[in-house]
């Protein structure tokens, strides 16, 4: 199943199939049988609450997890026509920061405080390409200008603590994009920022993506950001993708009770102000994940059939869902 077969004219630039990961010592998997495709110039948003395994997925795909602590039990990654095992991702050092780049959530902790930001950006060039440092510096300066940092020559010699949060995130973006990556993984790039700065960063990512046609995997919990950026959405719960499809179908015709609950608990800026609907309870941790459907412990429709794992079904044009009762309006009714 692919998350975005509606644009099958294009070939996915990055595909993941059947990715399963487990933290050493745990009894069950933290990420289970994830599969999705990323297409050039498109954005796949992975949405979910904290603890659903979205960040560990990103780190796993980048090969940034220590193999002795997190076991990749299955899964293959197909990237630019080459196929390799997800378990070997940590060996793909030549790809990281070159063809495959990542932006992290907290720009202060992911920049080295004791190096000038310009040097940190230029390092990405000198690591992957032969050439002089002078050339790398030239490229870094051009990149700083491209991400909208005023006075790149002056800023080049500054340290991370001299920049504001928004500026630091721009530096992270410059560093990730300097080698023209084919795929960018962004892990909550705007969560730590103010709304006005968030709007600027989102515009910037959109614009750069349009110019370079890179595929983007955006990880977020903010449905507003998803509606603005995504072409495709995958909703994660408890380490599984419970629903995926084009962004319009997810927002306008959601199928899974979790997606419906998530959308009804979002406060709105316009329209009638009514009491928020919630999802009862909290996300269970990996040890106490219910058997069968992992959402069953919080689902108002849970019944005996939910003790078995629901199959992923395609319901409508690339829109697929893992729920026994989908679509709810056709299978369920209120008892009198």
């Amino acid at each position: 199943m692919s998350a975005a077969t509606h644009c099958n004219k294009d070939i996915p630039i990055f595909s993941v199939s059947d990715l399963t990961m487990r933290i050493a010592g745990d009894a069950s998997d933290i990420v289970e049988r994830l599969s999705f495709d990323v297409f050039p110039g498109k954005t796949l948003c992975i949405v979910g609450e904290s603890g659903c395994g979205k960040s560990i997925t990103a780190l796993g795909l980048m090969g940034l997890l220590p193999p002795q602590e997190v076991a990749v039990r299955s899964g293959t990654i197909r990237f630019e026509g080459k196929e390799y095992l997800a378990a070997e991702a940590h060996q793909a050092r030549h790809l990281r920061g070159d063809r495959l780049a990542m932006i992290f959530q907290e720009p202060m902790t992911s920049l080295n405080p004791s190096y000038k930001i310009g040097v940190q950006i230029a390092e990405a060039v000198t690591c992957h390409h032969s050439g002089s440092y002078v050339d790398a510096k030239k490229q870094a300066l051009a990149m700083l200008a491209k991400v909208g940092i005023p006075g790149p020559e002056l800023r080049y010699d500054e340290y991370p603590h001299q920049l504001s949060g928004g500026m630091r995130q721009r530096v992270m973006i410059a560093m990730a994009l300097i080698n023209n990556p084919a795929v960018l993984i962004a892990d909550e790039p705007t969560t730590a920022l103010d709304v006005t700065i968030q709007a600027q960063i989102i515009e910037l990512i959109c614009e750069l993506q349009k110019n370079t046609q890179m595929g983007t995997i955006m990880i977020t919990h903010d449905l507003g950001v998803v509606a603005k950026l995504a072409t495709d959405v995958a909703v994660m719960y408890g380490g599984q993708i419970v629903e995926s499809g084009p962004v319009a179908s997810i927002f306008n015709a959601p199928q899974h009770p979790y997606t419906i609950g998530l959308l009804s608990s979002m406060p709105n800026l316009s329209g009638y102000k009514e009491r928020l609907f919630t999802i009862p309870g909290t996300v269970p941790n990996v040890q106490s994940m219910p058997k069968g459907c992992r959402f069953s412990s919080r689902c108002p429709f849970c019944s005996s059939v939910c003790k078995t794992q629901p199959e992923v079904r395609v319901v409508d044009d690339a829109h697929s869902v893992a729920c026994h009762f989908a679509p709810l309006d056709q299978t369920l009714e209120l008892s009198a």
Partner: protein
Amino acid sequence: MNEVILEARGLKKHFKVKSSFLSPPSLVKAVDGVSLEVHRGETFAIVGESGCGKSTLARLLMHLLSPTEGKVFFEGVDVVQRSGEDLTSLRKDVQFVFQDPFSSLNPRMTVGKLVGEPLEVHRQDLSAAERGEKVKQLLEQVGLQGDHANRYPHEFSGGQRQRIGIARALASGPKLIIGDEPVSALDVSVQAQIVNLLSDLRDELSLTFIVIAHDLSIIRHMSDRVAVMYLGQIVEMGPAEEVFSNPRHPYTIALLSAVPEPKVGQQKPLVPLMGETPGPSASIPGCQFNNRCRFARDICRQSPPKHSVFGEQGQHKVACHFEQGASNQTKHNSLSGANTRSPQVETRFQLYQAALHGKKAVPKHPNAIEQEELT
């Protein structure tokens, strides 16, 4: 409803910050001339970006910090002059809920001890057994179980910890609760639970809330009146519906347009905001916002604007020289509430909401589902 419970007059808090050994200290004007009134029984929200001074203002209002200038009156009595036992009795009436439920609870104390601690100070007439009973009752009031009192904070999730923080604030029987970003550290689904809990408690116990937040859509949901802060000053203040549907200050307009809404296919025009919030020690002559405002003219760089008053009973206050010009531009900005969901999808949402309210949903064709499972 119109009785004033808390009033601030010309409140200022300036911090001296010494950057290096030789240079003279610079002055950070965290709060710079704020006047406001909070009415009994309402939820009053203070919104602004990081560094605008909203947390400092909250701490000033309950005298956790002493103001450089200005006065705060709680039920007509000056708060700043209070000390000793007088201040303790103020603490009984005004309580604080902190942002981060992970760092605001002592990890070495049981939940019972944490919630009981304010009772030990403010209700010394209670015996230990009565206190234990009261703690149980408080925990149940915030949606936890009475026997949770013997557990430690690390055994709870973020949302449950925030409930403990709320129970602790309720313990002394306050009239006013100040929440500094009470829900922003929580997940969306849990955030909605806490927002609902707070509004239930307000109605049940006839509390007054002052809520500080940066998330505008949550503020719209929770509050009756809103104050928008920028660089230590209130730039716009008024009834929440009025401020959100008809914002008049260019900063409020830009702030509202920057919030991404969870709706697909409804693009709202982004009102660009140039640059970033200036550093807190920057001194800007005239209107504080003039270097980022697209309507700025000479007068904005020379004299600070006065609050002009709009709306019925003059409740909507705006500090801008050209609020008329700015608000005319926003008309196209309000989203049409067009519903793009089909009736079938609406049924799904209704089913979900009915099921949450305890109604039972049953399969239409019980056999159909079982057969599907078998194949």
